């Protein structure tokens, strides 16, 4: 174990902003739309590098999505970016009709997602964005686990032709991914091998899952950790394989329990290879102000919450097995 070292703390949104500039040099069709939070979502880097390819729409998220759709019709590759809640909730119908249904090449890239946005409170904590985007036909949904993966992800998403939603975070978070590891949309990454149970995580919870696996290994539990960076299209084969080989699943995400990564994984399990699953997620509640780390703990989505969920699912695994035997 201990394969993953914390290299430094850096924000996924910074990886996004830097990658946009790199791609901008190669792809003259890349355009960015800003809605008065460009410094926060780090599209300011692109704005400064390519001012003629940056468009400010003011604080008008619905207009931002519509403008992006029009730019896509004109052959551009538009990146529309603001905070997660205002990128998905506010312009939902514009995304549904003008982007997803119309199947236009619009990239919705949101920062400040999840409870870790912290002190701004519930209004600014996007906790339903994965669910909202995941249910839209034609839309793909991704979330990086660190700064390095954010860069690779945005490059893959710009190369992909079609509507996409990418979810970034505000805080500086642990950087641990391998620069040279391949990245493919829809192909999950097994970070740690194990046979007793699998944790499937996305975003910040990937690192928390690594910490949980390390802690549990000292108690003799062999935990597999999968980075499910693409929530849609979800890596069905990866999930089924993990279910078959470990017999128990824990999902972990900084999102509501309904409709997010956990639901996506459950949909695969129930239809293919049902095994006990526990959900580490926000339990159908709005968030509140506080600092990010404190809130992750309070809402039970940090390492400790994941460890508890693993123990619970392992108990279910053994009792449910016994019940099955008994029925026979």
């Amino acid at each position, binding site marked *: 174990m201990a394969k993953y070292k914390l290299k430094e703390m850096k924000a996924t949104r910074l990886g996004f902003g830097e990658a946009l500039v790199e791609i901008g040099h190669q792809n003259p069709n890349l355009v960015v739309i800003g809605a*008065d939070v460009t410094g926060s979502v780090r599209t300011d880097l692109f704005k400064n590098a390519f001012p003629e390819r940056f468009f400010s729409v003011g*604080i008008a998220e619905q207009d931002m999505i519509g403008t992006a759709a029009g730019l896509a019709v004109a052959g551009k590759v538009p990146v529309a970016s603001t905070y997660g809640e205002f990128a998905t909730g506010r312009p939902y119908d514009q995304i549904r009709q003008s982007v997803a249904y119309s199947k236009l090449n619009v990239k919705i890239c949101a920062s400040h997602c999840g409870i870790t946005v912290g*002190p*701004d409170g*519930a*209004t600014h904590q996007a906790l339903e964005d994965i669910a909202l985007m995941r249910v839209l036909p034609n839309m793909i949904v991704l979330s990086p686990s660190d700064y390095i993966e954010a860069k690779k992800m945005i490059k893959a998403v710009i190369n992909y032709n079609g509507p996409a939603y990418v979810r970034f975070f505000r805080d500086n978070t642990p950087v641990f991914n391998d620069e040279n590891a391949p990245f493919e949309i829809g192909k999950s990454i097994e970070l740690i091998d194990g046979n007793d149970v699998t944790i499937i995580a996305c975003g910040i919870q990937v690192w928390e899952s690594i910490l949980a696996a390390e802690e549990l290994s000292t108690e003799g539990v062999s935990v597999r950790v999968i980075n499910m960076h693409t929530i849609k299209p979800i890596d069905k084969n990866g999930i089924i394989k993990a279910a078959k080989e470990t017999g128990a699943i824990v999902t972990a995400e900084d999102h509501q329990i309904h409709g997010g990564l956990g639901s996506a994984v459950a949909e695969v399990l129930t239809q293919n290879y049902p095994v006990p699953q526990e959900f580490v997620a926000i339990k159908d509640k709005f968030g509140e102000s506080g600092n990010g780390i404190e809130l992750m703990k309070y809402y039970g989505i940090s390492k400790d919450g994941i460890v508890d969920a693993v123990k619970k699912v392992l108990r279910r695994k053994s009792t449910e097995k016994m019940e099955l035997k008994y029925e026979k």
Partner: protein
Amino acid sequence: MEKLNIEKLYEMARQLRRDVIKMLVISKSGHSGGPIGLAEIFSALYFNVLNIDPKNPKWVERDYFFLSAGHLAPVWYTALARAGYFPLDELATLRKLHSRLQGHPAPAHTHGAPGIEVASGSLGQGLSIAVGCALGLRLDAKKNRVYVLLGDGELNEGQIWEAAMTAAHHRVSNLTAIVDRNDCQIDNYTHVVMNLEPLVDKWKAFGWNVIECNGHSIEEFLDSVEKSKQCKDKPSVIIAKTFMGNNISFMHNNYKWHGVPPNEEQARQALSELSPTSFGDFIKFDWENN
């Protein structure tokens, strides 16, 4: 509630500024510039204009106030506390876990503070809510008046203009909207991010009674509110010209102060520019003596 005279209202405005600085230096997170620029307007609203009973926030005869631009919460919280809605020392809990003073306002019946009717923080939604409330009150032939405060950057949101049409269409005259015209938003000056001018003509064209004033002159603001009440066939909007961070030299008219708190040294500087008042601070820091 007893109304303060003009002199006291100015003194209260200075106290609200001191409170905002102190709250933010404790929370280490939050919006300084907009709230500081609104001290006169909040002093005038809560200590003269609004017909309210802070000990009975749900009093049926109350005037309704909506803060559409929820990020301006710090100055609202201090005005609410000073008016008596909740204890002054609660101001030190801004943005902390389990505080009623959420980063963006939440109503008391969720986990927010008394005096708050509806959550805000997602810009552009407050005018519709105010129009709905005004329509409801009119339906019941009630005398209560509805006030709503909007940021000027917030006017970028399309919903504002949808609500502006609804209000004019239904001749909602028991409503006064106030626009904080500080020409600042997050990314830059408002005229750089998204031009709003000619703003007065826009509101007029939408069918509103438009009143312009200097938002740092309490006399002018009170006079504007009076004028808005006199208008019986249209909704009224007061376009209050303010400066972000007004009365604090290093914040004055600087959009970079939109969303950041002062550090200790900046707080010390700011407080030295705002002399103490007879209302007294809600907290005294160790470093204030030196």
